[in-house]
């Protein structure tokens, strides 16, 4: 189900122009993604936490979303320290935990948490239609904007159809095992889901055409130009530049 628990609010970040937010958070995320210097990454994480606090995000909802990456990170922590080549830190029987492996895992953990937090604070604090409108204004190709908005709006509907199909096969006594019948049934299920999703997409598109849709999204949300936008942008750009400087200095 689409829920936009962060979109309603009146914090400083909620009131910023969505275009500024998208540009700033994109620049920040790219810098974080390509940085390697751990103190720089830790500072970035601190910045993200400050942003989340400024947006007054609900801690419980934030943790719920971070949990999704947590499983991915767990996998990395299990695999990378054992498989990466380099100085060994610790040896258990045939397994060797390497220093570069551990460092890499730390970096990935900080980076993903930082970027996710920043996106939650800056992007999820606007409604999806506002995001689409802002992306239009930033001259992003219309196809990408549509892909983003439609996926977001209808992923839940498709999930519902999946559940319905699943119920339909369950009530007829289907039990999943490793037989060829089982695999074939799942293949049909997935095939059916694609077919249904595509006809659904066509109907939605038709309904939009009937209401005069010509490829652009409009939002009812109002964002007045204000000094606040610029002050925040300069600060945020300064922080991002600071991270770049830290990273470059670390190369000595």
């Amino acid at each position: 189900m689409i829920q936009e628990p962060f979109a309603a609010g009146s914090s400083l970040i909620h009131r910023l122009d969505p275009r500024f937010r998208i540009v700033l958070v994109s620049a920040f995320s790219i810098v974080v993604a390509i940085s390697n210097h751990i103190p720089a990454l830790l500072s970035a994480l601190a910045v993200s936490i400050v942003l989340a606090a400024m947006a007054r995000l609900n801690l419980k909802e934030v943790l719920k979303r971070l949990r999704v990456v947590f499983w991915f990170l767990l996998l990395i922590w299990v695999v990378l320290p054992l498989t990466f080549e380099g100085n060994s830190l610790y040896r258990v029987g045939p397994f060797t935990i390497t220093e570069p492996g551990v460092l890499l895992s730390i970096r990935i953990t900080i980076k993903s948490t930082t970027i996710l937090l920043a996106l939650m604070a800056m992007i999820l604090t606007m409604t999806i239609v506002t995001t689409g409108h802002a992306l239009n204004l930033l001259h992003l190709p219309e196809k990408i904007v549509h892909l983003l908005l439609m996926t977001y709006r209808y992923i839940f509907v498709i999930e519902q159809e999946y559940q319905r199909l699943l119920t339909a096969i369950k009530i007829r006594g289907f039990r999943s095992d490793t037989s060829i019948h089982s695999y074939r049934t799942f293949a049909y299920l997935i095939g059916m889901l694609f077919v249904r999703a595509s006809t659904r997409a066509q109907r939605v598109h038709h309904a939009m055409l009937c209401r005069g849709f010509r490829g652009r999204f409009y939002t009812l949300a109002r964002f007045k130009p204000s000094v606040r936008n610029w002050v925040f942008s300069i600060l945020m750009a300064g922080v991002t530049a600071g991270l770049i400087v830290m990273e470059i200095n670390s190369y000595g």
Partner: protein
Amino acid sequence: MDKNGVIIQLEKVCFAYHGGNNVIDELDLTFHQGDRLGIIAPNGSGKTTLFHIIMGLLKPCSGKIEIFGRPVQKEKDFHSVRRRIGLLFQDADDQLFSPTVLEDVAFGPLNIGKSKEEAISISRRILDFLGLSGFEDRVTFKLSGGEKRFVSLAAVLAMEPAVLLLDEPTAGLDGHTKAKLIEVLTGLDLPYIVISHEYDFITAVTGQIYTIENGKIFLDEELHVHQHEHVHRMGKQPHKHI
């Protein structure tokens, strides 16, 4: 609109889905200003297809379509058609696109170039008219079936159309909601075409009832609508006899 008040004119229109037989076969239809027309026909007889051809969503393989006195053929011709003919889809979920009710109803007006203020005031007026004031900030996909139907009707009416096409508007509605829909439709000052499987409903909201057979549409005067008084258990619950 031409002199005789003809809004929609189809002449020998054919349509077939990929590799199939003609669903619509040399169909002629003339729809006038002030007409209120019902269509009852079996599943798969091409009722929805007919609506989609009128809106330009499906392209007929042959035939002539004139709407408001002007021939329409290309996608561009249909842009103005879609502004003036409002189509209510069978499944409200296809139509409700935005997260909140107000945004969804304002989607059409904004698309046709209304300002934010105009779009909001039109939307509020229509919601109010349909008895949905207070629904503005409700989340569209959390509405009940009946509420969804009325919100999608509001979304169509917000385009301020000159004609309505209603595709099974009563599907999945209980008796009370249906009665409300009848009240709204008969109170509108608009010509419309209604597709429905329900005789009671269609006779309540339209004057003439047509049927589609072998891809052609014709006035079926042999249909006799009749009522019985009858008693049985659970008779108080809204139900159908088929």
